[in-house]
């Protein structure tokens, strides 16, 4: 089977840059193609985007119903939970919008359409990332941003420029961490084709976990979500800092700002796993 990555491992550094640039450009082209094809059925697109919006609204309504019975959950008020919900959901929404097709790799390996991607002169990662780009997922992001906006307004936080910057960086770094989880999950499917659902535990399950304050969960679970799968860096640690609360694990203060570094590390790890996965790929031959 063709191994598009193998020859690149001997290329000099500037070629890596060129390769990344060409990958990004290809990603842009494929995304633009999917957007054009989506817009051919404009009504359908609007309905689906509205549906995605409504779906996340119901998700938050469940939390609102919880708070109709209690004033605090795990010691956190509704605006504070809204801040957690907004950051987690926006980050996940961004990753889902930009890299949402990695759960289809197992299916592609099974039906043999992965081969088509390998013979095209475009990095496979870019092709998979842009595959079936679903603009309707903006609906979810819109809802998340609304909740986040309300949380920012209603939580008792003095929004100095530094804190504003931390919030913005947190959402982006969180998106990158979730994105690397999507890529890792995709790479995993080269070995375990049918196990695509496992990654849902970490991406969508992780998203749900982070919508609630860490004080709600058992210490072991919080530890696992900090040191094993670094979900805590998506929003728990920085948002706790913004709210002026201690994190339940009592980590040193600087880790609250470690989100971007963790994101870079996760992306590097995901990239390595992706290459290993692609190398392990065996075509079904069909």
């Amino acid at each position: 089977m063709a191994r598009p990555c193998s020859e690149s491992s001997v290329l000099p550094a500037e070629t890596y840059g060129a390769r990344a640039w060409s990958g990004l450009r290809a990603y842009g082209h494929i995304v633009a193609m999917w957007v054009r094809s989506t817009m051919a059925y404009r009504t359908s697109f609007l309905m689906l985007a509205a549906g995605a919006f409504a779906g996340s609204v119901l998700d938050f309504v469940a939390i609102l119903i919880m708070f109709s019975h209690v004033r605090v959950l795990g010691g956190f008020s509704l605006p504070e939970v809204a801040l957690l919900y907004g950051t987690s959901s926006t980050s996940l929404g961004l990753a889902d919008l930009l890299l949402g097709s990695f759960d289809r790799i197992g299916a592609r390996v099974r039906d043999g359409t992965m081969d088509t991607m390998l013979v095209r002169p475009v990095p496979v990662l870019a092709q998979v990332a842009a595959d079936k780009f679903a603009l309707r997922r903006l609906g979810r992001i819109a809802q998340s941003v609304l909740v986040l906006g309300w949380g920012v307004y209603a939580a008792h936080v003095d929004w100095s420029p530094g804190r504003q910057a931390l919030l913005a960086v947190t959402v982006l770094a969180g998106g990158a961490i979730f994105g690397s989880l999507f890529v890792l999950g995709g790479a995993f499917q080269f070995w375990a084709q049918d196990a695509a659902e496992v990654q849902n535990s970490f991406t969508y399950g992780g998203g749900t976990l982070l919508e609630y304050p860490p004080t709600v969960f058992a210490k072991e679970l919080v530890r696992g979500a900090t040191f094993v799968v670094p979900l805590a860096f998506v929003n728990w640690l920085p948002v706790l800092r913004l709210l002026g609360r201690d994190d339940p694990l009592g980590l040193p203060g600087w880790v609250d700002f470690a989100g971007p570094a963790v994101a870079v590390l996760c992306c590097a790890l995901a990239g390595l796993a992706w290459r290993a996965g692609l190398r392990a790929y065996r075509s079904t031959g069909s």
Partner: protein
Amino acid sequence: MRAWRLYLSVAASGFRRYATYRVATAAGVFTNTVFGFILAFTFLALWTERPHLGGYDRAQALTFVWTGQALLAAAALIGGGFQEELQERIRTGDVAVDLYRPFDLQLWWLAADLGRAAFHLLGRGLAPLAVGALFFPLALPLSPLAWLAFLGSVALGTVTGFALRYLFALTAFWLLDGTGVSMLSTLLSMFFSGMLLPLNVFPGEFGALVRELPWAATMQVPADVLLGRYAGAGGLLRAFGFQTAWALVLLGAGRLLQAAATRKVVVQGG
């Protein structure tokens, strides 16, 4: 008599078809278990703050979470199963071939879906419930009769869920693209089945309304049967009656819609 044997073998092949994918089943169990843990802790926080909310104590609330995860695949609470397949057959026109075959379209899909549900209840239901019982104090009944009643309620709930999804799938005859309808169907099911939050926690009039909707029959009622909230023969009769009534009404509506679709709509493809 021979017709029944046909549908029985369709159900059996539905069971075998899903049993083939063992890795996928294990992956599903893993995911259900992870979600079970997350929800269990949020429910614990809620019930610590407000004990006896919605008439549940803490153990019952936890049992509700894990029952929900156990039924998630079996009752197809977040979609899956036959719906996309039938929609695709309608879109491509393959359904014309199905309509020619000497069996009833609705009963065929019902039999296949019940076979799938039976496998999913065993393959994807038992393990998460067992893990839940291992890590949390659950209020599971000891009497075999209570479990039998639960199984009966799950079966009725699955038929109700099927009837609902069949109605949604049939809209493909008019809309062709089923993506939006599938999304709507999943949304309604997630929210109104009680999977996100038990329906008896929903406030006031709205709560009273959602407990009478058909989605309540798919998860809320089976879970409450397991929790012994329909005590005695009278209580069980009420639960089963509610589920059966919705199942019959929706299956009937499905037949009417199917008749209308096959009479009026020109099949796609060619």
